[in-house]
């Protein structure tokens, strides 16, 4: 039984995520797996994702991982990263695809043609680079991380949550958007902690130690 299972559904690059966990938790057993049973058995689950959400949903289903992902998201420490955050929601504008519906809300695209910064310069999409993360609450996952710390982002879509109580942090790119959500045992982020230098490693370390409190 693994301490941490990183779910592999064939999309994108999981090397960075597993390397970063090996670095912050050298004694933990960490597996990268596409086996639903391994996911169910693991103590903690990491749900990453890269690329286009319709492909991610398709590949996840092709491996029979849907139930194991949803179950994990309801009963054990669960960390969603990037598309792994977006897939938890009900629906995405990307390919008009349905998500897992674990959290209420939609995934929307940045309207790039209409976005400018304070100096009047055009804002590019994808939103790529280091942006500030403004924490909305005192979640244990933010322990040791300064408010407004910068994390590395790369995405063209963002989550528009229907439940404001799940918002754990926001960033601003032309307008404020939700970049971290938290509910019970779920913590999910739009940025890439595995690529966010010291602050990102602190967040991953917090996940390894996190003991969620269930309110429901």
């Amino acid at each position, binding site marked *: 039984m693994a301490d941490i299972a990183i779910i592999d559904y064939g*999309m*994108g690059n999981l090397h960075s995520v597993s390397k970063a966990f090996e670095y912050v938790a050298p004694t933990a057993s960490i597996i990268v797996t596409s086996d639903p049973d391994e996911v169910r058995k693991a103590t903690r689950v990491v749900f990453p994702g890269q690329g286009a959400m319709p492909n991610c949903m398709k590949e996840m289903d092709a491996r029979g991982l849907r139930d194991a992902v949803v179950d994990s998201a309801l009963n054990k420490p669960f960390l969603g990263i990037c598309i792994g955050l977006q897939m938890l929601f009900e629906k995405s504008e990307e390919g008009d695809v349905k998500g897992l519906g674990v959290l209420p809300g939609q995934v929307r695209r940045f309207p790039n*043609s209409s976005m400018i910064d304070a100096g009047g310069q055009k804002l590019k999409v994808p939103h790529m*680079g280091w942006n500030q993360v403004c924490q909305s609450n005192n979640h244990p996952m933010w322990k040791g991380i300064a408010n407004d710390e910068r994390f590395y982002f790369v995405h063209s879509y963002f989550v528009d949550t229907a439940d404001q109580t799940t918002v754990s942090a926001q960033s601003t790119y032309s307008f404020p958007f939700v970049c971290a959500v938290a509910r019970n045992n779920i913590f999910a982020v739009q940025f890439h902690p595995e690529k966010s230098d010291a602050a990102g490693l602190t967040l991953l370390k917090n996940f390894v130690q996190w003991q969620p409190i269930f309110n429901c």
Partner: protein
Amino acid sequence: MGLAKRIIPCLDVTNGRVVKGVNFVALQDAGDPVEISRRYNEEGADELTFLDITASSDNRNLILHIIEEVAAQVFIPLTVGGGVRHVDDVRRLLNAGADKVSINTSAVMNPQLVADAADQYGAQCIVVAIDAKQVGGTSAESMKWEVFTHGGRKSTGLDVIEWAKKMQLLGAGEILLTSMDRDGTRKGFNLPLTRAVSDALDIPVIASGGVGDLNHLAEGVLQGHADAVLAASIFHYGEYTVRQAKEYMRKQGIEVRL
């Protein structure tokens, strides 16, 4: 406050060592890639770019080992380019620990490679590198740039702005734009080129080629409208640290991660 402009040190790697040349010739040894990567990370580099300029295919795998080693200890985005010809090359680099793969000559030879790689791995990890040379007149209206390949040796007849737009359409997530006229000269970026390309695109543009001092980096953002600036030699020989570069840029009113 918002998204920071990125500073990206570039490491030209051949046969497992970092080197630096002028206009792609006269290479000098500049050190061990893993050691240099670690130093740049500590100084606050936002990303690192590795260009594998190894001539012989025999030594191609050396870059994979270097990336593996860097990725195990440096947790910022890593881009790798040089000799990427097939989707399989993209896969091998990503598996070794690269976060983005840069495609240059092969994008011109086979534009479908960009589409296929972006489809398979996502646009966020596909960088198209464009080597540009000025071909038009010097007045603002007549300025034109042409895409060159094979390290700047072969002309293609392609207009840089049209080509960049095409790459964006096919799925590139970012453009790495190098002025061949400026590369290695330390005279600063080609600002009209950088601005023309950046303003024409919706995706981010990294300015490259010609940085000789810190003001050049700031100009790239303020006048060239670059989303990120890339430099090699000013950092390799310890003239400036990445931190000094960021402090300078901040003084010029540019938002940076410090």
